């Protein structure tokens, strides 16, 4: 006997128990007696930890005053951070010249906003401004020596300023260099491939501390007498090359995930190697590598603290140096908590940005 359905079933709303806050909680937090117990215990533990952190950092903390004698409460003594704030931000950059750093920050922030946000569609001019104009202007601003600006030696740079210089220079060098190395490693030309593989495997195989140490202590021994680079530049070169090697492998992973058909389609349309790479393969490869690329950036940002080993006073080292000051003995906790908070803010911002970017670049279903 044949069965024929003549009417269509209309769409009904889902049952109430599956939607809304109550539905969500029943589904996720109290789905069984064991889960309910776990939820209650977790809430208790989280509350305990959170409340003591809040009372240490805010409720019982000391914000007002000039010296440690003003810290009478039981909580954190933020007076220490306040008293040394200038140094923590700028190192030993002369106080009357610090406006130059601030101007640099503002110029860079404008550029980054234009390039990274969605407000400007055509990125050509913002990109030129951010990646060409800003670095040059910042060099003259920060170092000085021309346009009537006094020279500020890099040995006076420090604090968060130095950390940001190290991180941004290394990031902006590492990504393009990493892409070139990744393409080189996949090249069909044996010499190019060997050079890239050799570089990547060598740099990746040694700890960053040794790279920095070699760049700062051993390099001058090999260079002819009288020829010497600035310590900061040596650190920058070391960090950039180191992260470029990591970046190369991240990008290579992305390149390998792109089906061969994409290159073939590009070739069959008459696109040469560079156009096929630049227009078809790399945009897709970089898009799927965003999580790993940002992961590398975040690692790199935190690794800048290792320049401590060659005597550069970045954010962490300058706070650490502050805690050894006789007048502020015992302030290590406050110092490290503050440094951790600053690093966290930067790293978390990068992470959120990458998630936003991933969603923006998502184009329909993947095959």
């Amino acid at each position: 006997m044949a069965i024929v359905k003549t009417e269509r079933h209309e769409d009904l709303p889902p049952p109430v128990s599956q939607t809304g806050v109550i539905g969500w909680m029943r589904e996720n937090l109290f789905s069984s007696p064991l889960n309910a117990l776990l939820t209650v215990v977790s809430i208790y533990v989280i509350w305990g930890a959170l409340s003591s952190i809040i009372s240490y950092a805010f409720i019982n903390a000391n914000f007002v005053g000039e010296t440690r004698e003003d810290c009478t409460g039981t909580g954190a003594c933020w007076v220490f951070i306040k008293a040394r704030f200038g140094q923590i931000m700028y190192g030993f950059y002369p106080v009357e010249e610090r406006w130059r750093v601030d101007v640099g920050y503002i110029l860079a922030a404008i550029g980054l906003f234009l390039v990274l946000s969605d407000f400007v569609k055509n990125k050509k001019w913002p990109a030129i401004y951010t990646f060409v104009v800003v670095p040059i202007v910042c060099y003259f601003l920060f170092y000085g020596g021309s346009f009537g600006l006094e020279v500020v030696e890099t040995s006076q740079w420090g604090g968060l300023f130095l950390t940001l210089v190290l991180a941004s220079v290394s990031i902006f060098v590492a990504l393009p260099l990493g892409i070139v190395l990744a393409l080189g490693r996949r090249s069909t030309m044996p010499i190019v491939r060997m050079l890239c593989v050799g570089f990547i495997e060598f740099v990746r195989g040694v700890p960053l501390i040794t790279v920095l140490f070699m760049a700062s202590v051993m390099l001058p021994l090999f260079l002819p007498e009288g020829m010497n680079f600035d310590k900061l530049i040596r650190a920058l070169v070391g960090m950039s090359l180191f992260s470029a090697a990591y970046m190369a492998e991240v990008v290579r992973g992305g390149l390998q995930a792109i089906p061969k058909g994409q290159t073939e389609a590009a070739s069959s349309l008459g696109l040469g190697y560079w156009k096929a790479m630049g227009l078809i393969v790399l945009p897709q490869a970089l898009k799927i590598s965003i999580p790993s690329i940002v992961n590398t950036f975040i690692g790199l940002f935190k690794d800048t603290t290792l320049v401590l080993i060659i005597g550069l006073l970045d954010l962490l080292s300058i706070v650490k140096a502050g805690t050894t000051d006789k007048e502020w003995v015992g302030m290590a906790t406050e110092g490290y908590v503050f440094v951790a908070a600053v690093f966290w803010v930067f790293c978390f911002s990068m992470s959120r940005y990458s998630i936003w970017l991933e969603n923006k670049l998502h184009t329909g279903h993947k095959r």
Partner: protein
Amino acid sequence: MSEAAMTQTDIDVAIQLIGMHKWYGEFHVLKDINLTVERGEKIVVCGPSGSGKSTMIRCINRLEEHQQGQIIVDGIELTNDVKKIDEIRREVGMVFQHFNLFPHLTVLENCTLAPIWVRKTPKAEAEATAMKFLERVKIPEQAMKYPGQLSGGQQQRVAIARSLCMNPRIMLFDEPTSALDPEMISEVLDTMISLAEEGMTMICVTHEMGFAKTVADRVLFMDAGEIIEQAPPQEFFENPQSERTQLFLSQILHNG
């Protein structure tokens, strides 16, 4: 230059393969392939999988390299000269089994990319051409969507439009309907038939025997890297000469 231009208009041979061999490492994939395709001719290539059909047409636009013999496309011989390879690729369109659309670009951008970057066509003009071809394959309304939002049949028609935007003289089809759901095959075949009716030189690797009967001037049967038999469709299907062809035809026609 003038000589080349003259020979191009004079010759009515679009593709010529002369004594072509190819190996993958030790494996001899293509053995002594000789084939002449005249301008406007439609060739259907069939044969069991692994017989070298795809490899042969992929040699014609140098997606695969041949090791011996000659391939002459549009009067230009394929050598290692990258310039000549690019020149040939501009004139030879290709449609793939898995469409190979660029997923990060819209349908319209897929179609205008090569004209803009390879032929240096102004953007507005390239877009007008692209819309013309998207209308021809009957999906102009999808122009702003991304490939991932289209069905398989629609994607394949976009792929055909993308190739046509380069104004190729020759089109290669590498099993264009094999990855499609049955209900979408005919929409792609219809597009190909209308293309054939306009006089495009075509080589199609396909198992759609109905298509072969309708449009092909010649059907080629390949097995184990060799062209075993070639004949006009009627003769090929009604009176196949070789035993292997007979066996193959009995197998596919039995199922289809």
